[in-house]
């Protein structure tokens, strides 16, 4: 097995071919150009940047000590409202997203045009930020929790729909084939073929989105869509920084509690 040596012959080894190197270089170059151009063009006053640490320290100073007394009167009710917005919004979004997700899945819906429409809807709802959805719904329904819930719901359609669509595309074709061969309708295929397979992924997606929605709902109030965001906005406008800190802490706690809840539920159900 010991071969004859190739004496004095220098064989070369390259990690990437020339073409690959060119592509990588192009991307690096593009990034550098983008960064340099951005730095030159962007409107940042250097004094503000150097002043930043001192300003941050000053802000943090004003936010201490935390005004716990403020909590029961306004914060708690707003916090509960936030959770309701998040939960109702998630439930609504699941109802709306499911059919769209089915439409986007290329194994459930073989029609390419419908696929495209489904994907388009999903991408658009994702691209519009929940705050922007909130502004839209406030313009329609007026400020308050209704706008907030609808904003959460519509924003989540893209997320839930996309992941459900992907879950459906990744199901085992075998069991579906068997159902089709037995003459099952589309609805039955869904009920007995797809649903059992995607169930764990589905719950995981819903739980995950609820978690994210709790975070999102907390800020919607900043534009007037209900929940603790409104309390936060008021406190900030009145420069009551110590109340701001108690609100921030409560948001933080709620988010942590939501994550703990989700981890527990996942352990049991999934």
């Amino acid at each position, binding site marked *: *097995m*010991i*071969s004859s*040596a*190739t004496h004095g*012959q*220098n*064989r*070369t*080894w390259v*990690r990437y071919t020339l073409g690959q190197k060119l592509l990588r270089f192009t991307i690096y170059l593009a990034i550098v150009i983008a960064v340099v151009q951005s730095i030159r063009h962007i409107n940042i006053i250097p004094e503000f940047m150097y002043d930043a640490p001192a300003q941050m320290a000053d802000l943090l100073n004003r936010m201490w000590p935390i005004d716990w007394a403020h909590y029961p009167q306004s914060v708690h009710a707003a916090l509960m409202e936030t959770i309701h917005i998040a939960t109702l919004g998630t439930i609504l979004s699941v109802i709306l997203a499911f059919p769209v997700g089915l439409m986007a899945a290329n194994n459930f819906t073989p029609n390419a045009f419908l696929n495209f429409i489904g994907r388009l809807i999903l991408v658009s709802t994702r691209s519009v930020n929940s705050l922007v959805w909130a502004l839209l719904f406030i313009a329609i329904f007026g400020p308050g929790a209704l706008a907030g819930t609808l904003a959460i719901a519509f924003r989540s359609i893209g997320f839930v729909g996309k992941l459900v669509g992907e879950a459906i595309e990744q199901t085992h074709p075998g069991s579906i084939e068997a159902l089709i061969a037995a003459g099952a309708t589309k609805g039955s295929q869904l009920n007995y073929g797809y649903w059992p397979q995607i169930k764990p992924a589905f719950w995981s997606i819903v739980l995950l989105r609820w978690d994210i929605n709790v975070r999102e709902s907390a800020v919607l109030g900043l534009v007037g869509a209900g929940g603790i965001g409104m309390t936060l906005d008021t406190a900030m406008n009145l420069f009551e920084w110590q109340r701001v800190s108690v609100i921030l802490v409560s948001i933080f706690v709620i988010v942590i509690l939501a994550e703990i809840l989700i981890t527990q539920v996942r352990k049991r159900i999934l």
Partner: protein
Amino acid sequence: MGAELRIEKLFKSYKAGVPVLKGVDLTVSGDGVTAIIGPSGTGKSTLLRCINRLVEPTSGKVILRTANKDIDLASVRGSALRQARRMVGMVFQEYNLVERLTVMENLLTGRLGYMPAWKAWMRKFEQEDINRAFELLDAVGLSEHANQRADALSGGQRQRVGIARALMQQPELLLADEPTSSLDPKTSVEIMELMTELAHARGIPVIINMHDVELAKRFAKRIIGMSGGNIVFDGDGQSLSTSHLKQIYGGESWLQ
């Protein structure tokens, strides 16, 4: 050309008061294969890993005597440890290749002990190293696979890469921890042949852990039997009798 290894009173306890290695003394020198056999859990793997300090010995010395100096592997630290490790090549049971890298890159990792990090990052390997890598690839019969990802290879092929990588270090001692346990019988023999031939050509001693006694008898010049953390047999394949095997492994029915 190869080094001499002298292990003196090596103790290792993973848990206080429960020693796995109970004062092992062993000297290996000259080229040729030394096989260590023994039941699972008796400390074979620990012994090997104490040699290149992948496992910290609790006490004792591991002296590697090379042409210019003696190094106590058990007590060196920092860059001295790394320099010492360069001289000891290791082949693993589960190949332990970096799966996402290509075969060539895996071979070149054998030179990492000799290169500063910035050069390694830029993949600026010496031409000498690249030549050597290609030679080794030819020697283990994997020239066409040079740019394939390691996880695209079969078990036997991966182990060949593992052997080539160890030899890239130009070691003075080669260790192998159950190199054939994950391979089928035919491939196992091929791998053993490859390792022993290549080591013999370079004049370096090989220490192999194995649990296949027949393979050990076939390829090893010297067989060490371990049981309960001590060496209980030290001789050649001829003198390894069934009573010795009973002492090492216990039980009788497997000896039929």
